[in-house]
């Protein structure tokens, strides 16, 4: 909380600086004319390569770079090459804001692909809104944001939970134990989950949050033994996911009667916890590495070929990859002289493509993405078995837990 406020203050201070130096940006259109003449399109790539979240953000960087290389190898966009400017924001929100300013103001990028955590996205948001630039955010997140300067290609709560929660209630029962890391994302997801559970007549026996990076779950496990819930709904993140699963397994609890249902456990975490600790638990996400489609086979093969055979793709690296292709489709529609963030945003509205997970589309109203949520059960070999896919692609509704608010093209509306 305190940390949030501090980064907020820093971001506010940053905003002040930006407005002072922001003046030359009026000529950005001329600058982009020059860029088009060079036959180059500059984009920023802003994922942490050092610090605590580098573990996951490295893979997002890799997926983004691979997509850019693919496009360039196939002749670029209307003959123009994409030039990635890679910066390392070191897992620190204030550094994110600083690097974002550099990419937008001095490198004159027309878009930036970046961020894993919500904290870092919130930190760069003022930069992109002030400069009217475009930020492409690949991570599933808690929703409740409505910016015309961010393209959100990850899932929001309704896309991860609308199929998942009723399915779990039907198959396992109505006593739910909610556990998450102590920050905004798990709280918003649980907020939405509790609404759904109330409608389904299910009961929340406990809702608790552990500190970020927490790795000692023995007291939590004692509570699970005492409460005996039907479902453990987990929004624990990062290395805590690994510790929770391993200690659950070591304590001899049984996923057949008390499964963990997670929104945050991907192939990445499973590789670190080992198949035996992950087996039997569930995850809901639009993408799993085993998904059987020609586009996904191509993606996985290319990824392994480019970055190493032991690498995994997961539900954040897949959007990191396809959003660059959506960027390409949008820029393709523009004349060389008109490649500005504003024009790209207008062009990307309603864009569709067949991504590894299935056909996705940018919703013109809120710039979030129509996705294909799936329910996967982890197997002992460390991969997921897909049990169910949504019947039809699912609309993103970032304010679904707040029925009197709606994100529209004109901004947030109170209904």
């Amino acid at each position, binding site marked *: 909380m305190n940390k949030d406020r501090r980064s907020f203050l820093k971001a506010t201070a940053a905003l002040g600086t930006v407005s002072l130096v922001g003046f030359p940006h009026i000529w950005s259109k001329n600058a982009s004319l020059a860029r088009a003449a060079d036959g180059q399109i500059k984009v920023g790539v802003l994922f942490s390569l050092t610090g605590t979240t580098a573990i996951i953000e490295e893979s997002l960087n890799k997926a983004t770079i691979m997509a850019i290389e693919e496009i360039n190898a196939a002749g670029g966009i209307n003959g123009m090459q994409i030039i990635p400017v890679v910066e390392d924001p070191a897992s620190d929100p204030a550094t994110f804001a600083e690097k974002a300013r550099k990419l937008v103001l001095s490198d004159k990028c027309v878009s930036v692909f970046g961020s894993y955590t919500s904290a870092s996205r919130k930190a760069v948001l003022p930069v992109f809104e002030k400069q009217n630039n475009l930020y492409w955010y690949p991570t599933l997140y808690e929703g409740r944001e409505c910016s015309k300067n961010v393209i959100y290609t990850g899932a929001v709560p309704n896309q991860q939970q609308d199929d998942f929660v009723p399915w779990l209630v039907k198959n396992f029962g109505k006593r739910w134990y909610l556990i998450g890391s102590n920050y905004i994302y798990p709280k918003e997801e649980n907020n939405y989950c509790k609404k759904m559970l109330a409608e389904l007549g299910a009961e929340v026996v406990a809702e608790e949050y552990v500190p970020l990076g927490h*790795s000692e779950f023995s007291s939590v496990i004692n509570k699970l033994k005492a409460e005996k819930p039907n479902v453990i709904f987990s929004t624990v993140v990062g290395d805590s996911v690994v510790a929770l699963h391993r200690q659950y397994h*070591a304590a*001899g609890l049984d996923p057949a009667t008390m499964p963990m249902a997670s929104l945050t456990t991907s192939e990445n975490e499973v590789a670190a916890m080992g198949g035996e600790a992950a087996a039997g638990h569930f995850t809901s996400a639009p993408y799993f590495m085993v998904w059987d489609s020609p586009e996904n086979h191509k993606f996985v093969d290319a990824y392994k070929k480019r970055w190493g055979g032991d690498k995994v793709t997961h539900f954040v690296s897949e959007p990191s990859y396809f959003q660059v292709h959506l960027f390409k489709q949008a820029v393709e529609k523009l004349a060389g002289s008109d490649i500005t963030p504003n024009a790209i945003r207008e062009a990307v509205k309603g864009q569709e493509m067949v991504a590894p997970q299935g056909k996705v589309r940018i919703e013109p109203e809120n710039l979030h993405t129509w996705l294909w949520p799936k329910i996967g059960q982890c197997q002992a070999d460390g991969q997921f078995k897909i049990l169910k896919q949504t019947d039809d692609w699912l609309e993103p509704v970032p304010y679904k837990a707040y029925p009197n608010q709606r994100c529209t093209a004109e901004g947030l509306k109170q209904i």
Partner: protein
Amino acid sequence: MDIVVSQLMTGLSIASILMLVALGLAIIYGVTGVINLAHGEFVMLGAYVAWALQAEFGMGLLASLVPIFLIMAAVGWLVEVLVISRLYGRLLDTILATWGIGVMAQQAVRLVVGGELRYVQMPESLSKSVTILGATDSAYRLFILFVALALFGVTWVIYRYTNFGLKLRAITQNRAVASSFGINTSRIYRLTFAYGAGMAGLAGALVSPLKSVSPEMGTTYVVDAFMVVVLGGTQSLMGTLASSGILGELSGYLAFYSNDTIAKALVLVAIVALIRFRPQGLFTAHART
């Protein structure tokens, strides 16, 4: 009833991990007076050595414990020779130097083996759960408890009943006098540092099957270790044992009756309050001055 036993065991388990991590720090500080901020990174390196021995040579965790201790002791020895030995008596400089070593160790691991979380397999024979007095507990956690007590015992015996331990105690009380009696103090310091680093490495290896292995994992452990040492008193092995026990049970019970976030905060508040009134910690060594 079984939940009471479970909770007691949980506290002991947390305590045993705390003690494993804190023991090396306590020994190094107690003897040499160096506040080793790279201690967490020694823990992390131990976990990575366990991972490397498993991934590269197929060695199980139990078989690798002795090599891990030796490798990490060698690392500690090297650090002492290259850096620490030049800085004795300069408290601020050693803090800065060890912190720098920690940062370098983190980044070196990231560069050499990458930033992904790593997997260390739990020994097959210990991956079951066992029942004690009606409560089930993880066999591996009991194993850690056993090893932690054994390592404490070994350290205690070395400290109390060996010639080396006698010299250690002499130096702890007064380096100059000990030295004038012919004790090679720099050799003793070097061995102490190596032993502390080896212990940290063992701690990292032992917790790795329960937790995750990443370049940043040391940061949380060093904080825990400092809490134990500050509470227990910096020059008392028994203090380390007792304060890990107290902190383990306390955080276990608080987390059970509230949650881990509140437990962590309350434990810190309790420690701050305690050192306000007893800055030397709960236990102090009886040194004749």
